[in-house]
């Protein structure tokens, strides 16, 4: 598909789509389509020409075949919680919504896998497993809304992925509809395959390889015991040093999350957990495993934190207290509204030992641009989520937020890190790709995209600076928008 050719959605094409999904599962009126003009990344907007709500792989296949026949681009969409504009229908075309494909097809506890349709909400899988002694490990903070198909496409992480790994470590097979409309299966539950690791390549391809219609995921045995701690620091520096010391000591906690003073204040106001309001930073630390082992680990961590200047390390005493602590952490975004009318969440990564440097840099940037920044992030992985607070009615402030965000991401690269640990490139970070990769790297990646998606008909304008967009150039960012935090 050429980058200049505008795509045309004809009445004939719409009729063909309606024959596949029925008129009640097809939206094409302007008002209804507005809802789909963006996802969790609201900076760039583009309304699809039509949204179809598919219910089976056969329907996806028929829709894709129709798109090919009429040269209309398509983009898959799960719950639309992407924070990188992954669902943006660049250049219009068809949005294929997978939210009605929400069957858990099989749960096999003995062989430790489940087969799910792509629209299954992440938390619903864990709910279905409740009481079985098993769970699905990847737990993005958006797990109450986001879908497994979206998780596969973005290779989602979450607080507990520090110990358990991100989505790709738990996906063993994928069924997808390719860009010709054929149903293809990659991988599966048996140990070894006679092929390249296509499943591994597919995960994180951000919807540019085709539409996932079924996923084989690993399920994980629940740990026998947890210890959840809150370490309280009077300085951000000491806190980031403690993180570095814990990892450096060879301890891999199940989760290691940092929250700074700004976010703690907002959380306390929202949840009245009893967070100390005068602390500069707190660390939420969880260890899990054998009952005989967790106390020793918790003790070592307490000692390491105290040695690094923690003024107090609290051990959560009950399951309810632990649950509330995690609720605070996972709903941190809800509390940010108390701080500012608008906010922009960034997603950068640095080597874990560089946390003190990057946090210092973020504070400097905040001061230099006079933009308040709060931090709540997956510290154990070095995965930052600085949240820049602003008022979107103030155009000049908006520009400063953009500048500050870019400087932070550039610093992540300079410190040996990356511009995204879990939200993906989408449309948001395309301009950073040639700062992370060489021209040849991008050329090879483009070649790989073409092996799956030769005409560029699937999710144009995403992930790679070279990815073609039908009739529409990549829109320059002009606005940071309001985004949810992790």
């Amino acid at each position: 598909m050429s980058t200049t050719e505008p795509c045309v959605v004809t009445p004939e094409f719409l009729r063909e789509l309606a024959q596949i999904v029925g008129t009640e599962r097809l939206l094409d009126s302007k008002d209804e389509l507005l809802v789909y003009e963006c996802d969790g990344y609201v900076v760039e907007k583009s309304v699809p020409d039509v949204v179809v709500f598919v219910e089976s792989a056969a329907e996806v296949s028929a829709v894709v075949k129709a798109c090919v026949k009429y040269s209309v681009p398509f983009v898959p969409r799960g719950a639309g919680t992407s924070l990188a504009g992954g669902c943006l229908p660049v250049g219009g075309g068809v949005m294929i919504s997978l939210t009605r494909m929400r069957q858990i097809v099989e749960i096999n506890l003995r062989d430790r896998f489940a087969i799910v349709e792509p629209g299954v909400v992440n938390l619903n899988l864990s709910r279905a497993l409740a009481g079985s002694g098993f769970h699905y490990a990847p737990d993005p903070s958006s797990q109450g809304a986001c879908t497994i198909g979206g998780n596969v496409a973005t290779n989602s992480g979450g607080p507990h992925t520090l110990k358990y790994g991100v989505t790709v470590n738990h996906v063993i097979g994928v069924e997808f509809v390719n860009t010709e409309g054929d149903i293809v299966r990659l991988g599966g539950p048996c140990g070894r395959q006679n092929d390249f690791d296509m499943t591994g390549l597919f995960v994180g391809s951000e919807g540019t390889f085709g539409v996932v219609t079924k996923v084989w995921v690993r399920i994980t045995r629940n740990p026998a015991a947890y210890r959840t701690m809150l370490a309280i620091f009077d300085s951000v520096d000491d806190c980031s040093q403690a993180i570095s010391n814990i990892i450096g000591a060879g301890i891999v906690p199940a989760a290691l999350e940092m929250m700074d003073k700004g976010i703690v204040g907002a959380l306390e106001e929202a949840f009245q957990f009893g967070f100390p309001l005068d602390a500069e930073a707190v660390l939420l630390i969880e260890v899990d495993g054998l009952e005989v082992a967790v106390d020793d680990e918790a003790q070592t961590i307490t000692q390491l934190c105290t040695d690094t200047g923690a003024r107090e390390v609290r051990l959560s005493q009950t399951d309810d207290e632990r649950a509330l602590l995690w609720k605070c952490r996972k709903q941190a975004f809800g509390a940010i509204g108390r701080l500012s009318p608008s906010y922009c969440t960034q997603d950068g990564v640095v080597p874990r030992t560089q946390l003190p440097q990057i946090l210092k840099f973020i504070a400097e940037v905040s001061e230099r641009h006079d933009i308040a920044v709060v931090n709540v992030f997956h510290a154990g992985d070095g995965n930052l989520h600085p949240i820049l607070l602003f008022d979107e009615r103030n155009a000049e402030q908006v520009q400063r937020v953009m500048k500050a965000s870019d400087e932070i991401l550039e610093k992540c690269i300079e410190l040996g890190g990356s511009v995204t640990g879990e939200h993906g490139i989408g449309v948001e970070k395309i301009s950073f790709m040639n700062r992370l990769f060489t021209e040849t790297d991008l050329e090879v990646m483009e070649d790989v995209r073409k092996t799956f998606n030769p005409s560029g008909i699937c999710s144009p304008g995403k992930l790679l600076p070279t990815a073609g967009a039908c009739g529409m150039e990549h829109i320059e960012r002009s606005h940071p928008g309001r985004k949810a935090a992790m």
Partner: protein
Amino acid sequence: MSSTAAPEGWLRPNSVDEVVRAIKSAAENSTAIQLRGVVPADVPVQRRVTSLLMDDYKAVVDYPARDMTITVQAGLHVCELNRILAEEGQQLPIDCFNPAMGIGAVIASDESGPRRFGYGTLRDYVIGIEAVDGQGRIFHAGGRVVKNVAGYDLCRLLTGSRGALAAITQVTFRLKPRPVSSRLSVFTFADANKLQQALERLNTTEATPVILDFAVSEGTAELRIGVEGADASCDWQIEQLTADCQAEEVATEQNSIAQYCSSFGYRWSCPAVSVLPSQVATAARMLLKRGCVSVGHAGTGILYPSRISEVGEPRDAAIEVAAELGGSVTSWDHDHPACSNTPLTQRLLNTFDPHSVFHWKPSGAES
């Protein structure tokens, strides 16, 4: 297996540029490159072959031990890598049949052994890669941080690609701490049925073994289970496992996991049957009926059959059993990803290696 030509020349590059030159020259002259240590595709070769030995390209590029990552050149031998990591109390927990192999070849072959049950495979550890494709293009993917979703995951594509797509030149791994202590217990059962019952109970054990292996032969069956951690937690786990297994005999050794894992190395040459973990005991019984004993990884559903009688032919038996149970068979000398004839695989091969420098496609032959 079809005939493959013996390498006619050696090349020991000590820079990526030399690798590029070798590949470009092979592409221009219609010759082939074999990556030393990687068993090539099973396709007839009618070309001159140069063997690329990466042994001189083995520097540690960066080892920020406190970040628990390491970046190394591809020729570094696995044993040397593990020695360096051990000094910092760290490890790359991958079992490898020949520790004197370069790490690039180990990744290309996706080596794994008993500990894959507890630790996963190389796909869980390679976080950054540099390689040269069949057009002589140097490319990178991933990076040096443990969490990173920028760009396509070519690290995983190259892991297990058996040298068919590119020559790996540099890698970054995420690392694990070395365990303080370990135990390896052998639980003996009267037969495969008893073993199966034990495996069912073990599925919900509170212990967290890193090894869950089995061996089934005529009249006896064994589980070989490895645990790691502090002494107290190892001892607690063995006690728990003993209760779960209800075996006739138990023998436990301390700190012998490394030795056990390296002794598994010779298996690389056997056909491997992959089935669901719940089918392992059944598959072992079916193999016995076909004159083959088997050992393997009960936790991950991998069996290696070998002959016990005149009638037993491991590969034939493996193929029959896998077909009956819906599993698959892989072996280094017969099965190669480059031979998978799905359109996607073939397109990837044509993209990365349009001149068939690596996968040794005979000149003029269509894939």
